[in-house]
Every structure is written in C-alpha cells, then in structure tokens.
C-alpha cells in the first residue's frame, strides 16, 4: 500500500465533535445571565399587577370606611380638589398602598436583585404629584368597577449592583370594586335628602304623604272631630321617617330593616289612635325592644294596609263642581233694581258737532309800534263776525249719522295786546291786529248705538214701531239737534267757536222718552237668565283650590265670558230700539256678574299673595312651594329596585329619626355623655286664628283692622257659652262681646223689616212682629248671630212672611225675589261696620276660651284629663280659622288653610355595605361610613398621620307647604293649639351645641 500521509478518521471525528459543540453552544444564548433577567422581569411585571389591584381594593376599603367629604385646610388637604375630595383621597390611598405593595415585591435570588417601585413621597408637597399619577374611572357595564391607571412604576434588575434590566410601566387595570358606584349612590341619597319641592327627593315625597293626612284630619276637624292640630309634629315625624326610608330605597335599592320595623309599628299605632297622638313617646322604647329582638311585630306591609283613614274624607284629587250660584243672585238683585237705568241707557242717544274750518284770507291790519322797554305781558283777543253762506258740509261716518249741517263765513279779528314797562313809573301798551276770513262747515251727528247691548243695526229708529206704541226715537232727532245747538250757543255761536278754535263738540247725551211698560216687558228675561247663569260651573280638583293653583272665580268668569254671547242673545238686526233696550238689560246683567267674579278672582289672587307673609319659607316663596308641591305630589319618581346588582345594605344610626333626644346608650354612634335630637320638626299653620283679622284683612271685607266679623264674634261667643267661666273679669268680657254681637243682630232685624217694607207688606207693627217671631227661635245671642251669618235667619223671616201674607206673595217670582232680598239684607247687616264686634273684644274673649281649655302658653304643664281634653278640643275646633277662597254672597264656598312643614335631621352614622370582599378581613364587606370624623393618613411614612380632611354626617332637610280646602261651614279648618309648633331642639338637629362640632 502507500505510505502517503492521510488524515486519520479520528481527526475528522475531532473536527465533528468541536463543530457540534460549537453548534450546540451557538444554539443557546451564551451565559446564564440574560434569560434569568428576562424571566425575572416578566414575573415581576405580573406580580406588580396583582400588587396594584390589591392596593386599589384595600384603598377602596379604607376610603369607604373613612371617606373625605371636605378637604382639610392643611398642606395635604390642599392637594385634594375640593369638588372631588373623596375621589382624590382614594387616589392618594391607592398610590400609598401600591407603593408599599410594590416595595414588598423586591427580592434577591442567585445574585440577581429585582425591585419594583413608585416615586416616593418625601414630603407633604409631593402629595399632589402622587395623586396625579393615579387616574380612576368607572368601568364595567354598570360602572360598578374601577379602571385604575398608575403611572411611573419602575421595575429594575441588578446583578452585583450593576443594572441589567429596567422597565417603566403605566399599568392600566380594571379592578372589581364598586367604590365609585357606592360613592355616587351616597351622593345621590344626600342630594335627595336636601332637594327642594319639585325635585325628586324627600321634600316632594313628604308633600305627597302629608296631603292625604292633612285632608283626612282637616275634614275630621271640619266635621266636629276632636282634632286640635290638623297637621301636628307627631305626624310629620312619622311621615318624614317613612319618606326617608323610601329615599333610602330609591338611592340604594333597600332601606334600613330596623327603621322599617319601627316605622311599621309607629304607623300601626298611629292608625289605631287616628293619628291623634300628640307625641310618639314610645318610639324609643320600641326601638330598644326591637334591637334586642324581643318584640316581634307584624310585617310593614301588613301594618300599612291597616292604615287607611277611617274617615271618608275626600282626597285632594277629588273634583268638586262650583257654580256661579250666589254671585248670579247678587247680580240679579242689583240688575233688577237698576233695570230702569239700564233701559234708559239705550234710550239716551248721543249727539256731537263737528266743524270743518278753512282759512280764506288773512290781512294784517296794524302791527306793534316800537316803544322800548321790556315786555311785561301779552294777550290776544278774538272777535268773530258770522255771516251766512251756502255750502255742502260733508257727510258723517263711523256709525254716527247726520242730523243736520250748515255753512257760515266767519271773520275773526285777532288783536294782540302787549304791555311794556318803560321805566319804574311809566308803561305803555301796543296792539297788533290781524283779520282772518274763514269758511266754516258745521255738521251735527247723532249716535243711537248706546247702552249695554252689543252694537248692531236697528231696523227702525226715527219712526214709530215696536211694542207699546213704538215710540222709538221719533222725537229724538229734533231734541238732539236742539240740544247740540243749545250747548254750542246756537248756529252762529257754533261756527264762531269753530273758527276761533274753541269748539266743544260734545258728545252730549240726550234722554229720549220711552214707554214706562218697557221694564215689565224686559224683566222676565232677567229671571230666566239668572237661572242659566247660576248653573254655569267649573269642575276643579279640591287640591288645586287648596294650593291656589286654580283661581275658581277667574275660571268661572272665563267660562261665563265664553257663553256671554249666547246669554245676551243679540240678533243680527234689532227690530227697534225697545228690542235693543231689552237685549241691553241682559247684557248689563251678564257684565255685572262678570265684574263681580273678576273682583273675586282678584281677591283670590291677593289671598295667594298673602301666603308669602303668612308662612315665610326658606326654599323659595310659599306660593310656589305650595303650587309645586301639590303638582309634584304624584310624581314620586322611581321606586327602589335599582342597585340589585350591588346588593347594598343600609344601616343608619339611629334607625328611626326621633324628635326626642337620644344618647349613647340608645344609639351607640352618638358619643358618650352626649344627647342629641336626631330630628327637629316645625310646622306653621298659615291662618290659624280667627281673630287676627288675617281673613278679613286679606280680602278687604273690612275697612280697618280694628274690626272682625260678626261670624267670628258669634263663634267665639258660642264657644264661651259652653264653658263655665269664672266670675269677674272673664264674665265681664263675655258680656261685652255679647252686647256687641247682639247689636249686630239688631241691625239685621232692621234690615229685614226694611225689605218687607220695600215689598209693601203690612204696616210697621206687623212687620216687626213677623221678623221678631222668626228670630225668636234663637233666644241666645250667639245662636241668633250665627243664624244671621249663615242664612238661616233670612230663611226664617221668609217663611214667616209667606205665612203672614200668602196673598201678596202668591206669585212665584215675588216669593223668589223676597228670598233673595232677605238674604242680601242679612249680608248687608253683617257688612255694616256697626254690626261687627271690635277685634279686641273677640280676641280677648277667644284668649279666654283658650285659657279656659288649657291652651294658654303656660298651661303646658297642666295635665287635663283625657275626657276633658277631648271635649275641649271639639269646642276649640269650632273657633273659626282658614281663608275663605270664594266669599260668595251669603256663604263661603270653601275655606283654605295652609301648613308650612320643615324637617331637619342628622344621622349620627350611616353605613352603606356592599357584600364584597374576602373573609380574611373582619368584617369583609366594603362599608361606606358617613359620620363626623377627621380623616388622617400617614402620607410620607414618617409615622405621623397627616390630617387629610373631614368626614361628615348625612343630614335631612326638607320644607314644604300643604293646603287643605273644606266646603262652606261653621268654622273652616285650622290648628287650634299652637300655630307655630316646634319640636324640642329646633332648629338644629344633631349634637346639642357642643361648640366646635358641626351638625353636618
């Protein structure tokens, strides 16, 4: 073989081995460092997300437990935006927790150190920057989660002190915590507790629940029930609590269960006692018993079902139909009396003179000579010379028609005389004269479209025609012309006046003769029309009247105006003047009723405006509170049910807002050794007392404030008559009032006799006997006066007269007319100032009554026995009160009274719980707490907790006005006891002025 050198296989093997080794090595990253760094950094990033999520959740937990509602006046507090202090405090807490959690992630393994960090807060000044690094936004389909973004997270890896890996990250994560949603709910609740009437919230809800109660009790009182206060603070307390519970449901989806149970029990109790209990003294005891779980009460729904007003009182939304009624009678009476004047108005055509003056020539006769000196005075004298002239004066227009016309030439001599002062003792006179020639055309025109009837052509005017020999205006033409000429100084005189610019052209009215029988012919129309006008009616909700939202007289006037044309029933063309006069009587009657209704409408308006003075309110004027409150009472808005997703639980301390003071032993959220009023209530009755003159002063029924009405006097007297008054002053006062009231009835007696005399019935003695026999059925002064004011006296006299003079009163119209006359006679007597008892007499006596009944201010301590109280209340309730909204003749259509209700409350603590969280914490729930507390956290890690802000209590604040209207009756509706009822502690609920702690 050959010895030629050859490459051994072994060498090839070595090459392959080295090559494979190279390939193997080159296929893997060289060294162990870099893959370890990447892995470690990835892990750290993942861990940092968990760290930030956990931080957000923990921070939410803490922020809810100690929410910042108002930022503190400190360096740290100033970093919070005042408008979103809660959210900023949460951002700060998240930052601090995230920073701590990230720091915990740092570790060391096999020489590699990894760290995660956020920039530190070295001093309080870095707080704002820290807050800015965290941003929050609601997330999730219902906004029940939070999107958290944290900027500036730095992740580092070091080996032997050398930086081998670094990442800056801004993690953006959605964290499942409902903190923002809960905060929003609490915010909504707070807004609703302080909303004004008309907005969704407590005030509106309170109005809605107060209306039926006030009406039920108002009617009970009106019907003579033993009700002292129509709206009492005990009811307000009850319904305010109910309304607050409903607000809890509206905001959170459910309400405090303990509060519900106390409320149900209170409600049940109130239903049993007819809402008549004066104070709910047992609320606290019950609260205690319930808390211990001893007292099992029936469910709220069951109790509420039992609570239906026992009384068949009308609801404010019931409608009532109001007719023009008495106002039509009043108009009828007056129209009938004035029927001749009304007829005459149509028979009183007018005449006027018009002149057309043209200047033909102007000549200057002489001028002023110059005398020097100063002008002292100047006057002008006019002299006219009239000569006949032929011409054609123009025709009249605009409904006036021409009676005659003529032309004249008038020469006017205008002399201007000036007086001059030349020196102290010397004066001079100069004259200048101008001669003006004018052509004057004079036209005399008349208008017979006068009187109340609507305008329209008349078929025959100046010739005979129509009923009763049809005088029409036959002789009127000449009379008119004569009258015009006589007034103007004759034909030449008129022309001269016209030329000199001094024409008085009228018009003058001239009475034309008419048949005396016209009145009898027209009168039956009036009687028929009265019946038709009486029946004109509007239908209104009682509540609309009570809240002054509907002005009934104005509505009646509007309805009557719509039908005026039909009632007047004017033809297209009047047959004759008498025909027109008869239509005029109808028109005048309708207009008279309209005027009266307009005046009543204005009085109603004044009554509405007087509200603002009667009940000074805080949240807008009383008028709009009353109107808005009534309008919004049905629009309670959404019920609960939202927030099911969140499943929030409400826990308020106290569960039931009592007006009695409570302390720590009952409500543990209240600090020890302190008591406070959770709720303070005030209700003011707008028009409580009869004798303050409000009623009459408002409606101008009286001229001066020193008098009150006979009605008030009679009612006060009526009540005092049922009391056993002490001898002496009390009886003297009563006798004084008795005399005054008796005087009023004597006046009525005289008026009645006058009516009988006008009707030509019997002689004076007979009339006196008839009236006396009618009134003697009321031997007592008070009863007699009441009969005069409520119309029964007039009815009695009417009946007596019918019995005595059946023949003279055989005709139905005569009987009807007498009835109306008598009714108005009674009214005239009442309105006569002499018939009205003086205000002090009524007031003093009614004070006497109240004192006698135990209603005097100082009588509070006196314990009157229950039976006596009930009797007293029934009597006192007969004292007149309320505002008559439509004082029609003879009677009142309705009486309105208003109550201003204010509630203010303060929850020592409110906790809203979301059932979220892991059970490692105790308690696990996210609990949002509202209470008085200063919130501090250690922002810079120096071990000292800086003041961040203030948590505040949730407070209740609502005001409303409710109105009640009752039909005509003896005493109207109103509070008897206290007009301005305030619960203890008013006006500040919450901590009793401990000084530095605010109630909010």
């Amino acid at each position, binding site marked *: 073989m050959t010895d030629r050198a050859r490459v051994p296989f072994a060498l090839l093997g070595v090459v392959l081995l080295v090559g494979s080794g190279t390939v193997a090595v080159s296929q893997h990253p060289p060294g162990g460092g870099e893959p370890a760094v990447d892995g470690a950094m990835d892990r750290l990033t993942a861990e940092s997300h968990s760290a930030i999520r956990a931080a957000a959740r923990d921070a939410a937990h803490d922020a809810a437990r100690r929410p910042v509602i108002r930022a503190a006046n400190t360096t740290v507090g100033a970093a919070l935006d005042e408008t979103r202090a809660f959210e900023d405090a949460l951002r700060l807490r998240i930052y601090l927790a995230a920073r701590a959690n990230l720091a915990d992630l740092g570790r060391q393994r096999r020489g590699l150190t990894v760290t995660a960090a956020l920039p530190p807060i070295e001093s309080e000044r870095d707080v704002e920057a820290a807050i800015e690094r965290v941003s929050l936004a609601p997330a999730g389909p219902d906004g029940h989660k939070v999107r958290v973004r944290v900027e500036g997270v730095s992740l580092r890896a070091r080996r032997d002190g050398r930086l081998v890996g670094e990442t800056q990250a801004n993690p953006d994560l959605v964290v499942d915590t409902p903190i923002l949603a809960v905060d929003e709910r609490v915010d909504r609740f707070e807004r609703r507790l302080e909303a004004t009437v008309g907005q969704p919230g407590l005030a509106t809800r309170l109005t809605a629940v107060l209306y039926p109660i006030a009406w039920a009790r108002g009617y009970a009182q009106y019907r003579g029930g033993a009700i002292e206060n129509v709206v009492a603070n005990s009811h307000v307390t009850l319904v305010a609590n109910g309304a607050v519970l409903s607000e809890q449901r509206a905001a959170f989806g459910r309400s405090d269960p303990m509060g519900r149970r106390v409320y149900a029990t209170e409600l049940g109790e109130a239903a049993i006692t007819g809402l008549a209990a004066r104070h709910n003294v047992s609320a606290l005891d019950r609260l205690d018993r319930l808390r211990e779980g001893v007292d099992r009460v029936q469910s709220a729904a069951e109790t509420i079902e039992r609570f239906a007003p026992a009384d068949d009182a009308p609801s404010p939304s019931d409608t009532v139909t109001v007719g023009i009624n008495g106002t039509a009678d009043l108009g009828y009476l007056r129209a009938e009396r004035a029927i001749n004047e009304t007829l005459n108005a149509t028979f009183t055509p007018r005449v006027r003179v018009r002149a057309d003056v043209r200047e033909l020539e102007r000549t200057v006769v002489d001028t002023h000579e110059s005398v020097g000196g100063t002008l002292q005075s100047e006057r002008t004298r006019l002299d006219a010379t009239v000569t006949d002239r032929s011409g054609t004066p123009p025709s009249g227009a605009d409904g006036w028609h021409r009676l005659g016309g003529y032309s004249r030439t008038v020469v006017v001599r205008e002399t201007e005389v000036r007086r001059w002062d030349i020196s102290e003792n010397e004066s001079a006179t100069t004259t200048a004269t101008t001669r003006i020639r004018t052509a004057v055309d004079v036209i005399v025109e008349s208008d017979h479209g006068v009187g109340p009837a609507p305008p329209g052509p008349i078929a025959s005017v100046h010739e005979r025609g129509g009923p009763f020999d049809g005088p029409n205006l036959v002789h009127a033409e000449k009379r008119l012309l004569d009258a015009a000429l006589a007034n103007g100084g004759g034909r030449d005189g008129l022309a001269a006046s016209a030329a000199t610019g001094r024409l008085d052209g009228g018009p003058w009215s001239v009475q034309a003769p008419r048949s005396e029988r016209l009145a009898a012919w027209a009168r039956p129309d009036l009687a028929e029309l009265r019946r038709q006008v009486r029946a004109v009616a509007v239908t209104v909700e009682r509540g609309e009247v009570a809240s002054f939202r509907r002005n009934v007289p104005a509505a009646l006037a509007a309805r009557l105006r719509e039908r005026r044309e039909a009632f007047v029933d004017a033809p297209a063309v009047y047959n004759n003047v008498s025909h027109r006069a008869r239509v005029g009587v109808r028109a005048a009657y309708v207009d008279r009723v309209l005027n009266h209704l307009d005046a009543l409408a204005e009085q109603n308006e004044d009554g509405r405006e007087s509200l603002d003075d009667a009940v000074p309110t805080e949240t807008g004027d009383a008028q709009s509170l009353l109107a808005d409150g009534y309008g919004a009472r049905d629009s309670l808005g959404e019920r609960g049910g939202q927030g099911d997703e969140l499943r929030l639980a409400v826990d308020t301390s106290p569960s039931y807002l009592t007006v009695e003071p409570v302390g720590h032993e009952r409500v543990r959220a209240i600090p020890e050794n302190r008591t406070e009023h959770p709720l303070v209530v005030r209700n003011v009755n707008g028009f409580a007392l009869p004798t303050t003159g409000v009623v009459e002063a408002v409606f101008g029924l009286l001229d001066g404030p020193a008098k009150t009405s006979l009605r008030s006097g009679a009612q006060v007297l009526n009540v005092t008559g049922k009391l056993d008054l002490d001898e002496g002053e009390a009886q003297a006062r009563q006798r004084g009032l008795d005399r005054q009231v008796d005087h009023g009835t004597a006046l009525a007696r005289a008026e009645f006799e006058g009516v009988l005399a006008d009707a030509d019935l019997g002689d004076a003695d007979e009339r006196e006997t008839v009236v006396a026999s009618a009134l003697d059925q009321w031997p007592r002064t008070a009863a007699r006066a009441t009969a005069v004011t409520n119309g029964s006296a007039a009815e009695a006299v009417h009946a007596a007269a019918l019995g005595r003079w059946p023949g003279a009163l055989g005709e139905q119209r005569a009987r009807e007319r007498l009835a109306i006359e008598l009714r108005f006679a009674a009214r005239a007597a009442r309105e006569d100032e002499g018939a009205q008892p003086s205000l002090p007499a009524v007031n003093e006596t009614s004070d006497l009554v109240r004192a006698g009944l135990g209603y005097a201010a100082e009588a509070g301590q006196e314990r009157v026995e229950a039976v006596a109280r009930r009797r007293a209340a029934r009597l006192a309730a007969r004292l007149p009160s309320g505002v008559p909204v439509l004082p029609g003749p003879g009677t009142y259509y309705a009486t309105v009274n208003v109550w201003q209700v204010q509630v203010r409350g303060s929850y020592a603590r409110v906790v809203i719980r979301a059932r*979220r969280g*892991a059970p*490692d914490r105790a308690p696990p729930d996210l609990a949002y707490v509202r209470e008085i507390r200063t919130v501090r956290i250690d922002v810079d890690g120096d071990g000292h907790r800086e003041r961040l802000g203030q948590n505040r209590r949730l407070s209740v604040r609502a005001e409303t006005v409710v109105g009640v209207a009752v039909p005509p009756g003896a005493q109207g509706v109103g509070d008897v006891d206290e007009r301005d009822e305030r619960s203890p502690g008013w006006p500040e609920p919450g901590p009793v002025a401990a000084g530095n702690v605010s109630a909010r």
Partner: protein
Amino acid sequence: MRGVSTVLDVSVFLLLVSVAVATLAVPAADPPNATADETAETLATTTANVSYVPVGADGEAREPSRTAAGTHAELLGRGALTDLELDGTALAPTTGGFRAAVGEETATVLAWSSDRTSVVATWAPYPEAPLRGRFAVGERSPETVDVSTATLTVPVPVESVAAREAAAEDGYRGVAHAIADSLLATTLGPEDATLPDPGSPARRDWQRRMRAYAGALDVAEPADGWAAGRPAIERALVERLTADLRDRYSSPAAAAAEVRAGQVQIVVREWSG
C-alpha cells in the same frame, strides 16, 4: 499494524461522532421551569370573581352569599390568610366557603395545562413562625419526579410592618407587637372601628374569631364580654411571638430582616406523568 491503527482510528472516529451527536441532541430539551413560570404568570394576571357563602366548621351557612374579586394569585393569597393557625389551632372558623370557591376557580385555570400542577400559598410573618396560613390547590407534588417550579409574591391586606424601626425601638417585643397589630387590624377589624351591632351576623362572626384567638392563646373571656377582650388577646399574641422570635434569631435586627407580614408566597409546581 496499519490494520490495527485503521480499526482504532475508525473506532475513535465513531466515538467522537456519537459524542458530537449527543452534544447536539441533549441541550435541545426544554428548560425545566418554563411551564411552571407560565402558570404562575397566568395566576398573577388573570382575574376571577368568586361567590361564596361563609360556612362554619360544621359546613352550615352563616350568612347570605358574598362575592370577592381579584387575580387568581390574590385570591389564593387571601385564601392562605383565611386559614390561619397558631401552634396548630385554627383562627378563622367560618372561612371554608371562600376557600372552596377559590379552589374550584383556580382548578379551572390549572386544567388548561397539560401537566399536573400543585399550587401552595403560604403566609407567615417570618419563616417558620408558629402563626401561619396555608392554602393548597391541585395535587400533591411527588418527590420522585423532576418538577418545574415558580414562585410568586402577592400582597394581602395585612399592613406591611416597619419591622426594622420596631426592632430598634423595642427589640423582639417591638417586632412581635408590630406583627400582632397588623394582623389583628385585618382579622378582627381596625382598632378604631365600631363593632358591628349586637345580634348581627357580622357581630357573631367577629365573636367566633375572638373565641378562636382566645382559645389558641389561652385567654379567658372578660367579665363584660368579648367586646372588651381585644387588648388581652393582643397581649397574649405579642408574648407568644416575642418568645418565638427570641428562640429563633440571634438579634432583633436579624429577626426584623426576615419579617414579611404583608405578602404571601405562592409556589407553583408542575410535572408530567
């Protein structure tokens, strides 16, 4: 001679080639920890929402259900904190419902991995402390098979303890005090918080926790009820921890360096077969 050397040469060649093949083949296998790492990262980044009913040891529901949310790692960490024991006595009596729910939820995540997995979350204020919490999900890891391992750290709502300052101030007792403070603030509620209303489920739960602590620490119920019992429990816990720290560490500073109250370690192990 030539023949011999040729045989030798070829033999050496073949040997070298097979070594080269081995060199190329062996490193091509996966790095052992990759799957455990992936699982750990999934647990740390995916979130879950669990609904649970607090149940007692008797399995009876104590309250209406509640939900908890977080990443799986967070929930596991909190699971560990709900199963605390002190010297073998359980401290959180009604938290089983929560752990069952988290366990199920985590198991669904682990089911996606083709390997078999064990996840163990442990809370201890310091290594080997007598007070600890543990929560294990998945299978028990075998000792005979190679496993890939990854470790995670997640925060729990126990405030991180400034142990070094506490040690400087009050020695072992300072460290123990800081730990006890922090833990009780979480498990019994903040010290300044008002207790839940008597009779409420929250109050009963709190009462059970108090009794559990008292039992583990041999503290008698105060005459005026558990509401006033917290200081005694805290004192006893501080005593217990102080004694243990003193036994275990050479100095308060050494003890402080090991304190990890605000976090839970989660160890993920995966293996095949």
